């Protein structure tokens, strides 16, 4: 085998050398699991809920009514993330929190590994592809959380493969026997069948195909002399059809679609959820996103060649999503950013400035000499091995094996559980998931699964926590017997002065207890 420069490289050596994609994988795996492991586990309490749901499913099978809260007990529950919850529960069962971290890191790193592969397959210069993949990873880092959405990252890149690669290109690059049947609808069906059982982000996948369709239609209208828009439209329609069918292959069937989409229509809930708010460009992730966005706009402004219509629609649509809700920034980085890199690729290759040209050439030579995958596989295996050994290496805890007691009420919950405390509890929302997992006998008032609890209860929670006027009456009418909140919550401060409540402090979290005769709770709709 020869490199582009004509150098001879043995097949054996090419498997032993780490490819740029492997560097992407290894860097991000290390970053997620070790450097940002704390953030992955402790940013919110949702992991606790996912572990609990996963355990329940493994023990008793799928369930369709709530069994974790006393406020929504028995209400319909749609297990739309059951696949990832089972995966997380299994990894936790086998290797504890280090196992969860390993799954999260491998999932996230795989997405950017595949992104590099995709860019190379589309002919993007290796150095540009590498930079784009790393930049995409960096801008998504704020959302590296041990939650089901990490699987959506991988699925999105998978979908981009199906949308961007053509039958012809696959024939020319793989140089295998020519393909006569376009199997992309089949793969799309499989992708969405899997995706709809892992995370609600499959909805974004449907919208992404929709963007391509819109672009095709615009192209047909404005450039009706070009036949490729029509064939492209047909192809994307088939993919959309396959995707829609695939979405229905889940325990909830087609009803999963209105359930997932319905949450986005609950404006109050969306506006109150941090990750659905617009990006804060004062934060580090916002600054990175802003720089990349500005660079992307500069590229579009400077490059004389026009962006294709589907790519333009994808860029505009995903930019709108990302500016609307910060959680969409990683998805922007996996869709819009690579399309801009693809668009800028010819101009990038023409840059004659010596330092860049030399770096480009060296990187290209290196990437031609290496085959991706082996080093990534070894890295993943090493991470799994590390997780199985409790996350320690030579006495150093590399992978966290416990949650931060400064964030979650570890001490208070352990003590309350050992005391056998039970009853109607009002709890901090972000602690709900932790309580579900660490205190399974106790039902919560609310947790991060706000699509289950709905607007009414969420508003009630907010007003109680803020000790808004009438809080005492509402708390009494709910027959709340104890309250678990951070010390600086307004309700904590209010309860401190109430003679009928006793207080138990801890390192983090305050527990107020009161005893009342039990009464049936009536929902105030």
């Amino acid at each position, binding site marked *: 085998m020869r490199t582009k420069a004509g150098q001879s490289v043995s097949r054996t050596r090419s498997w032993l050398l780490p490819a740029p994609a492997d560097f992407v994988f290894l860097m991000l795996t290390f970053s997620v699991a070790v450097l940002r492991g704390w953030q992955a586990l402790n940013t919110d309490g949702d992991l606790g809920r996912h572990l609990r749901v996963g355990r329940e499913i493994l023990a008793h099978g799928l369930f369709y009514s709530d069994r974790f809260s006393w406020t929504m007990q028995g209400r319909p529950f749609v297990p739309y993330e059951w696949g990832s919850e089972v995966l997380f529960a299994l990894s936790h069962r086998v290797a504890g929190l280090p196992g969860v971290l390993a799954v999260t890191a491998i999932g996230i790193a795989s997405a950017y590994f595949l992104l590099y592969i995709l860019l190379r397959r589309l002919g993007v210069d290796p150095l540009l592809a590498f930079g784009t993949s790393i930049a995409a990873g960096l801008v998504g880092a704020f959302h590296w959380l041990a939650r089901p959405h990490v699987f959506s990252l991988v699925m999105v890149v998978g979908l981009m493969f199906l949308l961007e690669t053509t039958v012809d290109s696959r024939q020319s690059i793989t140089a295998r026997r020519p393909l006569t049947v376009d199997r992309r609808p089949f793969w799309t069906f499989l992708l969405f069948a899997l995706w709809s059982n892992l995370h609600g982000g499959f909805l974004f996948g449907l919208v992404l195909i929709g963007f391509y369709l819109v672009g095709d239609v615009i192209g047909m209208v404005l450039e009706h002399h070009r036949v490729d828009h029509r064939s492209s439209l047909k192809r994307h329609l088939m993919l959309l059809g396959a995707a829609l069918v695939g979405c229905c292959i889940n325990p909830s069937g087609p009803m999963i679609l209105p359930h997932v989409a319905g949450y986005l229509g609950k404006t109050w809930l969306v506006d109150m959820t941090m990750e659905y708010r617009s990006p804060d460009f004062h934060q580090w992730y916002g600054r990175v996103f802003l720089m990349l966005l500005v660079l992307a706009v500069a590229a579009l402004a400077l490059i004389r060649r026009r962006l294709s219509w589907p790519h333009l629609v994808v860029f505009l649509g995903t*930019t709108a999503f990302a500016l609307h809700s910060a959680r969409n920034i990683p998805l922007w980085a996996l869709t819009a950013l690579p399309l801009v890199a693809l668009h800028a690729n010819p101009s990038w290759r023409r840059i004659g400035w010596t330092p860049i040209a030399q770096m480009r050439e060296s990187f290209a030579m290196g990437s031609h000499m290496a085959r991706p995958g082996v080093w990534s596989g070894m890295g993943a295996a090493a991470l799994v091995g590390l997780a199985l050994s409790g996350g320690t290496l030579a006495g150093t805890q590399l992978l966290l094996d416990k949650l931060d007691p400064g964030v979650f009420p570890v001490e208070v919950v352990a003590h309350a559980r050992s005391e056998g405390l039970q009853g109607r509890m009002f709890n901090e929302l972000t602690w709900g998931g932790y309580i579900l997992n660490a205190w399974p006998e106790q039902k919560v008032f609310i947790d991060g699964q706000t699509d289950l609890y709905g607007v009414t209860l969420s508003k009630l929670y907010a007003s109680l926590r803020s000790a808004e006027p*009438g809080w005492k009456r509402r708390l009494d009418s709910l027959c709340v017997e104890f309250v678990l909140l951070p010390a600086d919550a307004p309700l904590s401060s209010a309860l401190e002065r109430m003679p009928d409540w006793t207080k138990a402090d801890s390192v983090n979290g305050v527990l107020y207890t009161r005893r009342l005769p039990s009464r049936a709770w009536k929902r105030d709709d």
Partner: protein
Amino acid sequence: MTRRLHPSIPAISLIIWWLVASIVFPARMLNSDGDLLRHIGHGEWMLRHHSLIHFDPFSFTKGGQPFVGFEYGSQLIYALVHRAAGLAGVAIFAGLLIATAYALLARFLLSRGVDALLTYLVTVAAAVLGAVHWAPRPHLFTLLFVVILLPMLEGARREMQDVNRDQRVSRPATRDPRPLWALPLFAIWANLHGGFVFGLVLIGIYWAGHALDYLRENDKPNQLAEIKRLGVLFGAGVLGTLINPHFIALHRHIAGILGDRFILDNTQEFLSPDFHSVVGKLFLLALLGIIALLATSRSRLNGPHLLLLLGMTYLALNARRNMQLFGVTVLPVLAIHFDASWRTLPDWRGIRAVFERDSRTGQTTTYVLVMLALFGFLSVGHGKAFGREVIPNGVSPDEFPVGVVRKARAEHLQGNMYHDFVWGGYLIYAWPEQKVFIDGGTDFYGAGLLKTWMDIGQRAAYWRDSLAAHNITLALVPTNSGFVHELLREPGWRLHDCDATAVLLQKVGGPAQPAVADSLVEACARRPASR
């Protein structure tokens, strides 16, 4: 050409935006926050004492400490307008500033040969984007001065290139504005509002843009000439900014504001835009439209315009208050750039031709005089015309503690007061004998005191200690805030007065009364806001 009686496009802009700002939106402008009242209060103090403010006379938390009155010029102007025509006059004056800015913007675009309809649409879009920050405050002078600076930045107009490159659209050249005019412009600007820094940044952006084009070997001789011209412009601007009572201390003070992350992160207008809001969505539409235009157009932006677009996008996404400046900088330069492409579009129902014809024959002066007369009449009447209130002459008692403060002042109530942040400016204005805890001038109070204020209001840890440390014996807070309930449950605090808007609590001693707190507050909420 026969001049008709219809208004010119600048006149239309002036009429529409003056009416909208001063008659349709005055309540929103006057009640947006307490800063207007703070500025008037500061201006009044300077007029009464015939001196600038060198040491703080308004607060008990920072009383007597050195004070840099960097907006003294606009504060004096607002105070004088208030003396002459009340708050209604202030709303009218603010409307005049806003309308003049957009009228001048239209005039600038027309002078650059931009199509008349496009000029009108761009001016409307700029005004809509700018409406997010329409408040009678010193920054309106910056809005106006940025528009005045635009011709100096753009320089002399040269022959413009049509889309097809074969056809060069010939338009009369404009005179090159003398860069030394920047000296008096910035001299006035620096005494009105700290936004002169933005003006210097704009010059820097244009300078860098021309340098970029020079390096890209686009029309090198002209680029070099522009680089030199902008260098002179920048130098003149910097010299002009030194002509202020504080000299270089002004620049240090403003740099300090922009470098204080805590204050910027906790000040509404410096937060990133909220794309869930209506204005945010409009800005998003504008951004996406611009990106679509850039991506689909065959003509490429020149260096200055490209850097301006990128820089202003950065600034506007960083702080929502910059959306207003985005509107008056990016939109017009893009209009200039895309004017040739715009002219190739079909003229639907001949609207463009009508605008083009009317733009050459419309009247400006007549309509300006008519509007001045109309609003002059309203000013004299303090917002009233023939006995009817057209423009409110006061703040809303639903937003500010008007009745409670009037009564407390009449009773000569005294003591260190904790109060709502926005009401700080109102207290300076309406109860000058009472010293404030804090107000909107956070550049003076600093991050430390702002954090203390926030901690007390949010009942964070040690909030009671903070109250005690400042010897707080009065509290003026919104009726429905959880803070009221908390304080009423504290030993020694009693309800002094209240209405639906505000509750005034006083520390008089005695045991806590937690049992009656809820019912007391609910009774207050049922009382109408007193005027």
